[in-house]
């Protein structure tokens, strides 16, 4: 068997939310390889009387297969796990959540009886587009999957010999295709952003393009401070109350086909990806190379550094942290706090110097996971000490990412209690302690607490906080404790907010019901006839009763959500702290050394912001997880 590239792509489609092909590209060279592989395989297994079809669907065929899948599996992604209504031969039959991302399609040939399956298709949803990528796999691997999704038993277990896991382990092309899909997704939605590097003198430093034009310090993009914070926090709690509906995200700009074509033909001229950095491709397309772009005299230029820096030299580091917390204020459930951080870097250094950066105090910061940019060579890999040696690329890049279990005291502590006194009225109490134990230079930029009620309409509220202002929207209450511009530095404050809240009386509003393992009709049929009996001999309190009623209308969430947000009462805290990190992670600018030695100032900035920072209603139900003791 000729050895072929580990990652090639047979075809790529971009579908709009209305199921039109917005873009498609096939790679004949890879397709040729697939045809040959099929012929070989069919020859090999001729006696079995079963052959792999060396076919690729046309755009309309793909679209109809895709919408058929959508119809059958309830959404573009599908169920992901095997439910009562999963059918044999479908992805959800395989019973693995990753089948929401790596799908199969059953293609019916136009006008013919022929039907064939296509696998693996990497599905990535971005904006209002579906990006579908078909990497090249060997026909045996394809057959293995086909076997998996038509198995007649009750579903696979983990330790099996021929499982989806072992397929994925042996298929780097899927990994590659997912990377391509994500890059393409960023390109078509225009989300290609460089990592932030903020320094004290200017809000943000531009990316690769800026460094070429030499406009350092004058941000090319009008980017508000903290944009990345906002972006990172959109994932979870802001999605509260929205049921992921495929159609709802349909407002988006048209695809920049030109950019996409250029990217594809430069980064994977034959379907085999070589460089997935869109910034490189677009800069090279815009600038090209002139005879003045000379390579370094002795060293070879890395592939990810097509241009060398010229001009003023300096190094900037920025540590960005996001803190996620689930605060319970209960004896039986410990609070869980975790910090995700990254060190962004920008090295405006001439030539190809190596930078060495010792990291210490990792243990103190309970640093759990550290991973690096690929330019980094990790020489020492101790528990507490790590020394990084890297040859920095041009522009902003994420030098390393880390995760710390929990830092010192969380910046916002306290509790939130909400108790329903009647079906439409509740009394609540906040008691919060902000920035306790945080001295200067820590400074809290802003802090807002919001109480979402996605399934109730707020009629009114009553009560005054000890500090800050309160505003009301249809489905939430917002309490601004610290407002931007009037941040607090070096002191801690205590804030309380007792009050009552009234809702409009409950009307049942149902969204489109997502098909789930148990159809709600089956259940409701039962509950209806017994409803009167329930209320009659009900000895539960109001809250439980209300809870139960509300839960009957709950929709199931997508597998991408951590839990059904709507089932809980909670308050979400958002804040930003500048001047330090919560994990204790830091870089000493003095210890940064550059070889060959050159003089460049090193600057460092730090900021931390909240991700999912949730105060669960102490009096209600709350989701939790067991934190293992041993680490």
């Amino acid at each position, binding site marked *: 068997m000729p050895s*072929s590239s580990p990652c090639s792509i047979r075809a790529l489609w971009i579908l709009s939310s209305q199921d039109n092909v917005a873009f498609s590209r*096939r*790679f*004949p060279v890879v397709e*040729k390889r697939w045809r040959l592989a099929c012929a070989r395989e069919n020859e090999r297994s001729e006696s079995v009387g079963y052959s792999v079809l060396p076919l690729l669907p*046309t755009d309309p*065929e793909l679209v109809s297969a895709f919408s058929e899948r959508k119809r059958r599996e309830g959404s573009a992604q599908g169920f992901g796990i*095997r*439910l009562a209504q999963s059918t044999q031969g479908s992805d959800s039959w395989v019973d693995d959540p*990753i089948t929401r*991302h790596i799908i199969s399609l059953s293609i019916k040939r136009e006008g013919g009886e022929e039907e064939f399956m296509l696998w693996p298709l990497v599905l990535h949803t971005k904006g209002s587009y579906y990006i579908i990528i078909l990497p090249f796999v060997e026909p045996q691997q394809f057959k293995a999957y086909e076997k998996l999704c038509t198995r007649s*038993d*009750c579903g696979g*277990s983990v*330790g*099996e010999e021929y*499982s989806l*896991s*072992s397929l*994925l*382990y042996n298929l*780097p092309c899927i*990994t*590659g295709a997912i*990377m391509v899909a994500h890059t393409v997704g960023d390109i078509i939605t225009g989300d290609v952003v460089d990592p932030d590097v903020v320094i004290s003198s200017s809000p943000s430093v531009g990316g690769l393009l800026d460094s070429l034009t030499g406009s350092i310090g004058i941000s090319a993009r009008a980017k508000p401070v903290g944009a990345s914070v906002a972006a990172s926090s959109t994932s979870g709690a802001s999605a509260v109350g929205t049921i992921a509906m495929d159609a709802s995200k349909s407002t988006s700009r048209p695809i920049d086909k030109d950019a996409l*074509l250029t990217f594809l*033909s430069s980064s994977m001229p*034959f379907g085999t990806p*070589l*460089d*997935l950095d869109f910034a490189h491709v677009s800069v090279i*397309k815009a600038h*090209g*190379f002139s005879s003045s772009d000379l390579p370094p005299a002795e060293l070879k230029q890395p*592939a*990810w550094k097509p241009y060398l820096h010229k001009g003023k030299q300096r190094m900037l580091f920025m540590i960005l942290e996001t803190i996620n917390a689930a605060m319970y204020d209960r004896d039986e459930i410990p609070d869980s706090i975790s910090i*995700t951080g*990254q060190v962004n870097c920008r090295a405006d250094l001439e030539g190809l110097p190596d930078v060495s950066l010792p990291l210490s105090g990792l243990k103190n910061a309970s640093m759990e*996971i550290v*991973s690096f*940019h690929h330019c980094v060579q990790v020489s020492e*890999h101790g528990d507490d000490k790590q020394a990084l040696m890297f040859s920095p690329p041009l522009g902003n890049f994420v030098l390393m990412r880390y*995760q710390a279990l929990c830092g010192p005291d969380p910046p916002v502590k306290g509790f939130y209690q909400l108790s329903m006194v009647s079906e439409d009225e509740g009394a609540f109490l906040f008691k919060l302690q902000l920035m306790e134990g945080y001295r200067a230079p820590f400074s809290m930029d802003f802090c807002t607490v919001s109480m979402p009620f996605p399934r109730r309409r707020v009629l009114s509220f009553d009560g005054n906080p000890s500090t800050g202002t309160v505003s009301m929207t249809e489905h939430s209450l917002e309490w601004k404790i610290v407002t931007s511009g009037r941040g607090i530095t070096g002191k801690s404050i205590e804030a309380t907010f007792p009050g009552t809240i009234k809702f409009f009386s409950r009307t049942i509003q149902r969204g489109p019901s997502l098909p789930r393992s*148990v*159809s*709600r009709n*089956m*259940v409701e049929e039962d509950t209806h*006839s017994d409803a*009167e009996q329930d209320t009659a001999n009900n000895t539960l309190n109001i809250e439980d009763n209300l809870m139960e009623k509300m839960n009957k209308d709950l929709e*199931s969430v*997508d*597998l991408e*959500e951590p839990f059904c947000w709507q089932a809980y009462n909670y308050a979400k805290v958002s804040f930003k702290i500048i001047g330090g990190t919560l994990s204790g992670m830091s870089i000493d600018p003095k210890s940064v050394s550059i070889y060959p030695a050159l003089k460049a100032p090193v600057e460092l900035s730090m900021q931390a912001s909240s991700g999912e920072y949730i105060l669960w209603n102490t009096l209600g*139900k709350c*989701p*939790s997880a*067991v934190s*293992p*003791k041993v680490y």
Partner: protein
Amino acid sequence: MEKQQSMAKQPPSPSLSLQEWETLLDDFGSGSPARCARWLPLPLLDLALNAFLRRDFASHLKPLLLLFIDDLLSSPTSAPSPSDSLPPLIDALRSLLLTSSPSASDPSPAPAAALLRDQFMATAVSAAVSSLDAPLDASSAALLEPLVEALLTVTNRPNHGPDRQSRAAACECLRELESAFPCLLADAAGHLWALAQAERTHVAQSYLLLLATVVRDIVLRPGLLSSPTSILSTSVPLVPFSAPSCFLSHPSADRDREPSEVNLREIKRVLGFLWERPQALTPAATMELVSILTSIAGALEQHVPTGGALLKVQFSGLIYSYHPILCHIVLMLYSGFPDAFAGEDERNIARRLALMAREAHQPLVFRLLALHWLLGSPRLGKGKDSLAPLAPRFYPGVFDPLALKAKKLDALACIAASLDTLEMRRKGEEDGRRALIVKLFQDGLVCISAYKWLPPWSTETSVAFRTLHKFLVGVIPHRDDCSEEPQLVFLMDSIIFSTLQSMLVNLALEHHGLVLVIGIFIDQLLKCKGHQSVGERLLQKLDEHLLPKLEMGYRLTSYFPIFERIAENDTIPPHGLLELLMRHIVSITVKHGPNSGLSLWSQGTKVLGICRMMLKHHHSSRIFLPLSRLLAFICQCYPDLEVRDNARIYLRMLVCIPGKKLRQVLNLGEEPSGVSPSPHPGSLFQVPSPRHSENIKNSGGVSSYIHLERVVPLIVKQSWSLVIPKSNMEDNMEASNVVGISDISISPSAESDKDGEMNFEQISYIKEPLRVMDANVAEILGVLRKHFSCIPDYRHMSAIKIRIPCTLRFESEPFSHVWGDGSSTFDSEEGEALPAMYATTITFSSTAKYGKIPPCRVPFLLGEPLRNRYDIIPVGNSFDEGSSHRASVNIELEPREPMPGLIDVTIKANAETGEVISGRLQSIAIGIEDMFLKASIPPDIEEDEVPGYYYDLFHALWEACGNSASTGRETFPLSGGKGAAAIHGTRSVKLLEVFLDSLIKNVEKHLASYVVSVIGDPLVNIVRNNGIIRDVVWENDTEAFVAHDVNALVPYSENVPLQLPYFEGDAENLSPVSKRTIGTFIILIFLPPRFHLLFQMEVGHSSTLVRVRTDHWPCLAYIDEYLESLFYT
């Protein structure tokens, strides 16, 4: 020429306008063959190339044009042959390269133009690769050579100038060609090596990859390395290019030769150069490179054994990158050289993958992938040593997406399973291990424990139950072989299973909303071949532990999904469930409030649903007792009318229809068309004719042309039968149960049957206090004793026999087709030409209780001439001319029960050719009327006393079968002296709306011999005149007999009111019979082995009331039908 003609309407110019191009690209882009078809006659490639090379052509279309060419040349249908398409393409490429060469006046062309040029190179290569097939022959190679040469020229520009991107593109093109046609560039390796070393710009990566690919192909090609000259020699100039000799020759020549020293050294040098700085490549390119290096190192393993280890040293650091591709590269190396990664490295990889799944910044899909890699790796995922210590890292976090939680729980399940293997069990430390497994299980579920109170359709619930399944199945995963049995025991013993069992019971108890989900969960197991018994076991557990704990009340409805599954499963004794339902029904009946009408109906209907399920899935004998008790209670006491009615129907079905048929009936009812409701109860029991099904079963068999037929056709096309336990206790030794005609699979234990029988009696009959016997009774007893002493006890002596006369015949023509020698033709005139069967033996068997049926033998039988095929030969004429074509056969039965049934017939005979004919014939149906016999007469009765004896016997039996039960406690010894019978009478009535004439005609035709007495002048006169009924007691007084029998109208089952209302002596319009009675027939029928059927027909002008009594009540079911068929057809 033709093309041009067809294009007459198009502008004759060789180029298309911009607009036309746009339409064309659009059409081809749509993928619809119809839209493309109109363009195909054009010389599309030439047009496209021309347009592309034109400077004034719209630049935004040029990239699309390239894509178009690419698609066009690779399309399997419309692509021109390579010899037509490649030369113009390559020419165009060369001219483009020449004009835009950097050596021209403009040293740095616009980047966009350069990009386009690079794309054109790719297009040309793509076209070449997809249109030429490896291995190439000389002519194809010649087509390729100019292309390679042009590309090499671009690659070979020794400066670092502005065209670096083009050089990279050319390298990629060459690499693609090399991959498609291995060793194409073998001779250029030395030059490429030099170029790769020299290149210092960022495109060095492309040179590196090109070099690596060429070297790999050289290494993989047998024989090349063994040549004494260096593979990196630069003796052959780079350009002009010609395909190397080794490329065209067959490589098989010197396959096994060792690589030469010099080349091994060269390869090592190249390898050292290639893996020098892995960080300098982009992640995707690193993956390419590692893949190439892996195959080189793999091929040279013998000669460079350290290759894997060196690769590991260079690349394993990539696992600490946050880039998923780089992590996968390490896995590629790991799976290629697992030995190089032993010990610490392996643990590092496992740890890193586990951590990667926790990295919140990674997109979800990569976190899932990391877990898959870990579990899918043949070494990491299996070894307990590598995974178990990582268990804490797999604990899901609160904010992990549910998909990730699900996958992490999979990993925990995997660890739990690995702790529960046989080896681990043997090792001991039982407590610690148990605690650990249970802890993993429960800790894991906490993160989705909202499933307990969220609605059952929530995603949390789905994930939770999926996890339960994974934990359970993890202990014994599915295997291809079917040796599951001992494995299952292993699973049942597992800690997970026992934990899960009790967990499910508690879940169901505490969260009734989950019951349905638990049901679906169990279904999933039940449907699986490998785990079916696990599901059954769980159901049993629920049956044992959940049912007793359930509280009565309306909440119980939530548990019906589980009840249904228990009811469906015949591995679970139904008693527990039926008792629970009984209590449930009782509690509803007692407690129901005034406004609970709808709820009552729904509850009752659901309970009946379960009953129906039981009827369908269990053998009647098993459920008979408790179910009949439950149904009886419902139809007596339940507050809802419809439920009562339905319960009555079910009860009647349970009592009257044998098991298998009952299941069929119930299945029929499930079809949408269903059985249409009919006021007549008989229609409830209509089942498909067994003849029909027999036909299907035997289609094509001997039964299609050999026929055994009843001489006297049955009046009722009986298709079902009923066997009821004997009412006297001595008969218990005989297996007695309700059995279907072909329901042979039942072998119930004697104990349960006895139990069932006794209780059944208690339900059906109300015990009366013992009476003092008066003279009348004593007389009756005397008559009965005498009668019963004449009845043989079939257990000890030969029983009463019943003969069913039949005829055997076969059709000549089809018979000869099958058995003849084929030469004979049939002439119905000549008997000699007819085929014959010799030494025919017919054997009978029946699942009905007919005792042993002796086989019949027919020594010789001639085939039927064609013309006679449909003639009916009367029985008596068995010696007429047709006798050699038909043989009369008597089937002798010794019925143990008077019941209709089917007799299966098999035939064995010799054909003229000596072949043995054997097969099944169509079954013979036995009707209830076949059982009709005259009662035997004691030897001391004179002939003229016979009518009187019958008359007395009738009255004695009539009395005994009546409601008074004066004889109920008596037993009557049977002939043979060992057994005794008791009489348990049942009564029924039937109103026949037929006219006098027809009634009398039918009685005379079919029942004449059983008539004991005719009462009433008008009737006596008519009947006497006909002269068919003779030797009976003629009586003139009708009133005397009828009057004391008013309460005879009680239906035959105490608990089931028959729907026929009859008020004797009331208003005339209600009882047309009473005053208009012409007379009465008294009919006594003996049913073997020892039962009786008594009719008292009160004959009127237009209708007749039949009072029926019997001491074998199951036969009432058939009698109803029999009477109808008798008088209405």
